């Protein structure tokens, strides 16, 4: 077992060697521009892209023509939301999203507010799920788009996408989802789920960085987005720019591998995740954040009360994880996702996200359990709050010196 151990697979995943192998020829001998229609170099590159399009389409149950390749999920989110807002402005200007979305969605919505959009940011319940009744109550005749993420990047909660899309459609709105954390991890089927637009990226599923997808439905209804990148009219005019052929080929291979291995992987990873979670919640005053029934198989987010996340990560120096604590940021604000669940700031500061992946082994999880437990106990020995808690002092009643 090699140290440090990578348990931050929700941030990015390592490239699968099989994906790398598929990509390599497209850097060298098959270097052509996929848009070069009049010679063999172009055709070979185009073939690679076409095949990748099939592989992607198969994973999410759509047709090849519904795939728009982008530079990643952030660009796909921007293109989907801004593109729909621009294309459908005659129909209305109202967009519904949720407070726990990724910044790529939230900041895009904020940008559109300056351009005249009305945006509703739905709160989530304590478990991280949105309230469907609140969604329905927020729908108006002006609503053109409901955009709610599939699986959350910090806590792994999976939203009731089918029900959400049904509500959106009942009011004549489109449904978009940022499925970056879900595609390739759990079954996502754009037809069964009623998805009109969907963003995701390759590097979260063992593919390369710098390539992603916006799925745009072509039938029932035919969805159109206004291009946000003008130029040579690639991707049927919706996203200009020379295609990143090696990246796209890698994305295709990554999708194929996920499709074939997802079911067994999900079982294996959720068993490891449950083992990790069970052992770590044996520690006093540790809490799992988010719904534990509707969630991704490979992630858990745990708050260890009375220890600070960043300090804790330092003690877990052989583990690469992430924390909801934002001690390094100028604002000192902890995770807005955890705060949206109603977590107090101190519990948000005390959270650690463990993201398991394809290359995580049981041996690594056993090591992670021991390492984390030791670190938590060590930091509690150092923590004045832990001492006060043990003495039975109610910390909420203390007047903290302002800082």
């Amino acid at each position: 077992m090699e140290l440090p151990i990578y348990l931050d697979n929700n941030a990015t995943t390592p490239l699968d060697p099989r994906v790398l192998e598929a990509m390599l020829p497209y850097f060298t001998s098959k270097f052509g521009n996929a848009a070069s229609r009049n010679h063999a170099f172009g055709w070979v590159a185009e073939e690679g892209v076409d095949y990748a399009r099939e592989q992607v389409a198969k994973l999410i149950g759509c047709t090849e023509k519904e795939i728009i390749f982008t530079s990643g999920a952030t660009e796909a989110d921007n293109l989907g939301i801004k593109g729909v807002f621009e294309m459908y402005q005659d129909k209305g200007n109202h967009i519904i999203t949720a407070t726990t979305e990724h910044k790529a969605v939230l900041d895009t919505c904020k940008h559109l507010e300056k351009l005249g959009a009305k945006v509703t940011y739905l709160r989530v319940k304590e478990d991280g799920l949105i309230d469907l009744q609140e969604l329905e109550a927020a729908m108006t005749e002006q609503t053109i788009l409901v955009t709610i993420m599939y699986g959350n990047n910090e806590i792994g909660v999976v939203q009731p996408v089918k029900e959400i899309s049904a509500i959106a459609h009942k009011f004549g709105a489109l449904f978009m989802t940022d499925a970056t954390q879900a595609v390739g991890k759990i079954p996502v089927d754009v037809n069964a789920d009623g998805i009109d637009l969907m963003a995701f990226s390759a590097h979260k599923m063992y593919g390369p960085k710098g390539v992603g997808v916006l799925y745009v439905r072509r039938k029932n209804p035919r969805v159109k987005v206004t291009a946000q990148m003008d130029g040579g009219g690639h991707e049927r005019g919706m996203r200009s720019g020379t295609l990143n052929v090696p990246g796209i080929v890698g994305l295709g291979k990554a999708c194929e591998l996920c499709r074939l291995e997802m079911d067994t992987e999900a079982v294996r990873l959720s068993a490891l995740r449950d083992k990790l979670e069970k052992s770590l919640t044996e520690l006093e005053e540790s809490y799992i954040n988010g719904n534990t029934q509707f969630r991704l198989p490979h992630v858990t987010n745990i708050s260890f009360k009375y220890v600070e996340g960043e300090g804790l990560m330092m003690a877990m120096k052989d583990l690469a994880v992430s924390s909801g604590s934002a001690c390094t940021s100028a604002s000192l604000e902890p995770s807005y996702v955890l705060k949206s669940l109603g977590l107090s700031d101190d519990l948000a500061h005390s959270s650690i996200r463990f993201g398991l992946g394809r290359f995580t082994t049981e041996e690594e999880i056993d090591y992670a359990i021991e390492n984390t437990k030791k670190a938590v106990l060590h930091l509690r020995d150092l923590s004045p709050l832990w001492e006060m808690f043990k003495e039975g002092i109610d910390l909420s009643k203390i007047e903290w010196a302002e800082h």
Partner: protein
Amino acid sequence: MAYSEKVMEHYTNPRNVGTLNKDSKSVGTGLVGAPECGDVMRLQIEVDENNVITDAKFKTFGCGSAIASSSLATEWLKGKTVDEALTIDNMDIVEELALPPVKIHCSVLAEDAIKSAINDYRVKNGMAPFELAKSHH
């Protein structure tokens, strides 16, 4: 962000972790910061009849830099007189630990903790508290 070697060293082997009897007249306790801000420091000093700090202890809830800052502070306090202790400036801590700009607040907190512990000691022993001149907020 990588931590400096000195921060790592204090973090890995923190000096003077512990608790002094806060009810003792010779002990001054400073508790600064707030849990919702992600750092709380408790720093205690024990002062003898010659106004010399004979012992110092800390416990800190916070990031590595906060722990290192308070560990260093206790190390510096021991053997100093109360008046000398008052001259410890947060920038001395920043320099010693090579703290990056985003971590300067950790050193400020340590300085606040020192001053607040000294004032607690003074008030307990019938002296007026020092005016805490610097405001960092």
